């Protein structure tokens, strides 16, 4: 009996070893932020309608900056990220560039607690009626003249006077920490909403994977984290009208010239497939 078990165990270990080696040699790695559209785009996901990129596998990082650092270290071949943050990153990190071809078409929207249809309606009407203010926010962040935003601490005793926003503040220019204050386009729009509704703005910073899950729990009213509208997420939150057209883009080393002639997403995917 013992002999049989030990035989089975050693066979299993051998199999695991072979599988690991096999997966290493076949697939190359693309760095993404875990839980984001980029991860589903690389690995493929039915709910999102992505077929995945043949021969590549996503390496999920806690935030996109770390993924780009690992690209420079040579541990991943490319990084897939949202367009606006990608362009922000290449400004701060030397030696990488953005391939300026949108790989996807997606829309950012805010995710509102399903039990608060009134809040959803008010945010939608503010998004529709305050276009000028919202344009000004985008312009200020594009020009780099935006100010950090004052927020309050969460206080459960006055939950109805506070707009509690869940975010992942590692996503410039949409949300990030500027010193000890929050800043970013999403935060600024939420500040506008809170002011319009006469509420205090509370921002809770958490890991991106937790942002959608947290809505409706423990006082969180809205998720504002550069969220792409998507069917799976619609099960957890009600999306507002979208406020930004986003896309995934590829980040490569600055020395990489393989994508120089790419004009469409298909061109990029063809180069990726040809390796």
């Amino acid at each position, binding site marked *: 009996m013992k002999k049989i078990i030990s035989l089975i165990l050693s066979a299993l270990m051998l199999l695991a070893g072979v599988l690991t080696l096999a997966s290493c040699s076949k697939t190359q790695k693309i760095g993404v932020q875990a839980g984001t559209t980029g991860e589903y785009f690389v690995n493929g996901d039915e709910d999102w309608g992505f077929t995945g990129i043949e021969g590549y596998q996503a390496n999920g990082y*806690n*935030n996109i*900056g*770390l993924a*780009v*650092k690992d690209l420079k270290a040579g541990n991943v071949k490319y990084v897939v990220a949202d367009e606006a943050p990608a362009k922000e*990153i290449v400004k*701060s*990190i030397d030696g990488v560039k953005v391939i300026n071809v949108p790989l996807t078409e997606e829309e950012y929207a805010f995710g509102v607690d399903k039990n608060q249809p009134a809040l959803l309606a008010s945010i939608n009407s503010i998004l529709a009626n305050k276009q000028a203010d919202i344009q000004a926010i985008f312009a200020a962040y594009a020009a780099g003249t935006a100010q*950090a935003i004052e927020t309050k601490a*969460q206080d*459960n005793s006055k939950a109805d006077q506070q707009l509690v926003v*869940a975010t992942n*503040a*590692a996503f*410039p220019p949409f949300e*990030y*920490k*500027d*010193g*000890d*204050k929050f800043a970013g386009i999403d935060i600024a729009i939420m500040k506008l909403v809170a002011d319009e509704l006469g509420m205090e703005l509370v921002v*809770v*910073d*958490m*890991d991106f994977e*937790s942002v959608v*899950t*947290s809505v*409706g*729990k*423990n*006082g969180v009213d809205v998720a504002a984290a550069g969220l792409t509208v998507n069917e799976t997420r619609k099960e957890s939150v009600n999306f507002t009208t979208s406020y930004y057209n986003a896309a995934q883009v590829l980040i490569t080393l600055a020395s990489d010239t393989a994508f120089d002639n790419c004009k469409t997403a298909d061109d990029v995917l063809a180069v990726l497939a040809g390796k």
Partner: protein
Amino acid sequence: MKAFDVFYQQFITKGGYKTVLLGLLTTLQIAIIGLLIGIVLGTLIAVVKVIPKYKKLPKALNAICNVYVGFFRGTPMVVQLLIGYFVLMPALGISLDAVVVATIVFGLNSGAYVSEIMRAGIQSVDVGQLEAGRALGLPFSTAMLKIVIPQSIKNILPTLGNEFIVLVKDTSIVSFIAVTDLTKAFRQIGDANYEYIVPYLFLALVYLVIVMLITYLIKLMERRLKRSERKQ
């Protein structure tokens, strides 16, 4: 030194140190209160487990303790945090501050580990000590509390200190439930400019200093407890 300049700007000029100080406070609060909860719970469980067979302690109590220790030692702390915050709280319809939830989870988790530490400590005290106490007419509970446990604490102090150090460092996972602890605060500074080297090195340094302080405190306590020892 671009990396350092960027860090200096975020940390000092823009006031990022305030977040870091608050984070430090949160980290220490979770670890210290967590350890206190853990010690109380752990001691209770350890006592339940070492109570002799002739005592009519309900078997159910022992079984509950086994399930509790099994669960909290058998699952990762991150999972416990996520279950506590995102599953249990909404299911029970209560709303607690994330820091409170983290503290409770850390306390419960630590309780499971401390119970084993305490059990080893209680068993390390010669059984004659308990028997002598009982022979003098002390009830079991008094003999345990006044004779056995004080001696066992002396034996387990280094291990308990270890547990505290582990707790302090494990708090770095609480950002999963939206708590801004020391790690999260430094990560935010790094994320703001995608410059991670200096913030992470500083973060490591702060943890190192905390742990060295704890080590020193435990040494002081050990020295104090040694005073009762017979001089050889």
